[in-house]
């Protein structure tokens, strides 16, 4: 069952390999068209509000970094090629956005024309934006499948590509909204509206936004492509259900439900954010966990057959199974052997993951075995021979508590600054 959930690819996805796929050139043309369209829009915004546009690009550009790292880290064992991650991000930021701008406006107008301006004011954004944007983003994951089907070899891969498409869309949309807020404020080229938009859309709404919806859709496409042991109707149904889930989450987020909040104050605003954002976030986290565990089981099984403690020990196999345990192993190494130990464990885990992937494709090259042994040697020299998770330390517990308190404080300040308190 696990083997059916993971289908290792035989080759990479270098640009030269992608260029040999005819569909890639169609996708490249779409990216070029999207880039031209968005460059025209950016030129107009930057021409009128140069400082605000630059501030928005810098702020949301910085916000991209942690999101990118988290999404790319989701599939630690079988990392997606950087070329395809960039392609997914570019699709979201260039193609999906440039298509969504005219299409969402048109659909919202149709709601007003066929219904009423009142209906459009209340439900226009909730009906138009999810229908258009989720479709345009889904096509981004479909495009990845068309140009590099072999690189979508687990449900988790679909999640990663979908999340990257969503992230690209989210960042570019946020920049456009931030400069739009500057225009609406009518105070000239000021950055205060950009900062307010950053707090609201980047910080408070960022976690349960397009990245999340994209991940959900991606899981469906991943299932459709990978689970060839299931009937086509079943796979298609799962993909449609995932799309519907993303669409419904987006509708709920944009809907006027709870629009008047749960009262006044930061707590009430936080309550609304949680009520609208937490269900899809929880759903995606459960999905990611399941997909990750299935993939991890598959690759750990490959490593288990190696039966060489120089390459991987029983304890390391257990640590490699879960993201939390991998992180715990790095922390433990950091406590025992400092930063060098932490770095060495990370490299050993990466080498072991690479070995697992190569073993699943065919016989792994000798260089990969040598690489793992090299990292083992370094760890041994550092006096920490095994990359296993240590006992939970008080420092880690204290650091978790402090981080949580700081996060709540920052959230509170952001909510208060936006008029919640």
């Amino acid at each position, binding site marked *: 069952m696990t083997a059916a959930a993971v289908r290792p690819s035989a080759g990479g996805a270098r640009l030269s390999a992608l260029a040999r796929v005819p*569909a890639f050139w169609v996708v490249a043309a779409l990216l070029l068209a999207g880039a031209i369209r968005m460059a025209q829009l950016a030129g107009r915004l930057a021409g009128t509000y140069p400082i605000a546009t630059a501030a928005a690009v810098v702020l949301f550009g910085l916000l991209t970094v942690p999101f990118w790292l988290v999404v790319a880290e989701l599939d630690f064992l079988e990392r997606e090629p950087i070329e395809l991650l960039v392609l997914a991000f570019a699709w979201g930021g260039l193609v999906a956005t440039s298509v969504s701008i005219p299409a969402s406006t048109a659909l919202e107008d149709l709601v007003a024309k066929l219904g009423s301006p009142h209906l459009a004011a209340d439900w226009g954004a909730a009906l138009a934006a999810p229908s258009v944007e989720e479709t345009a983003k889904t096509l981004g994951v479909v495009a990845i499948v068309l140009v590099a089907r072999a690189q979508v070899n687990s449900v988790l891969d679909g999640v990663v590509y979908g999340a990257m498409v969503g992230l690209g869309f989210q960042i570019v949309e946020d920049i456009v909204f931030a400069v739009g807020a500057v*225009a609406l404020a009518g105070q000239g080229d000021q950055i205060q509206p950009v900062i307010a938009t950053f707090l609201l859309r980047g910080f408070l709404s960022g976690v349960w936004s397009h990245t999340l919806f994209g991940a959900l859709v991606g899981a469906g496409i991943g299932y459709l492509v990978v689970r060839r042991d299931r009937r086509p109707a079943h796979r298609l149904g799962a993909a449609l259900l995932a799309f519907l889930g993303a669409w419904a989450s987006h509708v709920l987020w944009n809907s006027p439900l709870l629009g008047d909040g749960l009262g006044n104050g930061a707590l009430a605003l936080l309550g609304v954010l949680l009520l609208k954002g937490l269900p899809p976030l929880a759903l995606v986290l459960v999905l990611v966990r399941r997909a990750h565990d299935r993939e991890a089981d598959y690759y750990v099984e490959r490593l288990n057959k190696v039966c060489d403690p120089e390459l991987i020990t029983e304890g390391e196999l257990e640590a490699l199974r879960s993201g939390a345990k991998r992180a715990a192993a790095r922390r433990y190494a950091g406590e025992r052997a400092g930063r060098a130990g932490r770095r060495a464990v990370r490299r050993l885990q990466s080498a072991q993951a690479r070995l697992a992937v190569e073993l699943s494709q065919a016989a792994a090259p000798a260089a990969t075995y040598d690489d793992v042994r090299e990292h083992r040697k370094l760890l041994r020299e550092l006096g920490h021979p095994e990359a296993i998770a240590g006992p939970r330390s008080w420092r880690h517990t204290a650091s978790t508590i402090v981080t949580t308190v700081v996060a709540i404080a920052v959230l509170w300040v952001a909510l208060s600054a936006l008029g919640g308190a």
Partner: protein
Amino acid sequence: MARITRRELMSLLGAFGVVATLGGLAFGLPAIDRSLPDTRPVRADEPYVIGAGVTVVPPTGATLDVTVTRPGGSTGTALFRLGSVQYQIAVRPFDGDLRAAGERLRHRITATSGYQVTGPQLRVATAGGLDGLQGGYSAPGRSGRYVVFVADGRTIEVTISGADLDLGRSLPQIEASTRTLQTDGRDR
């Protein structure tokens, strides 16, 4: 010349399917939207609710542009059309005074390339006693008038624009309509 495999052909067809869907979204939806009329008649004998507790009696013969009109609880926009003349009213939360509101609206008008404000601002008032500031602006091929009011924590911005001749003909009716602007008196 290299032959295209069945798999490549299928992926190429799939890519064209993607292009067709995107085309449907980007061009098809706007085309359907354009095929339906933007405006619908509006009664000139009763107040129209713009949003945020603000009402206005529309000018006789005006139509309502439903693509721009968006009533709401804390904000609202209504666009009336009289031939080529556009008469737009926007209500938004605002915590400044009338002078600041006037300044903000002038900023927004001049932020559009080719738009310039003309002449000084004059004091105006509605029949219900709302005080406002009125000014003029010019745009390529069009002239405009703006009026701004501040009441109960919100700003009411009126912008009127059209070709000189049409604007001159419609202005008396529009000014009469503007004088009927009313708020519900509740703080927002």
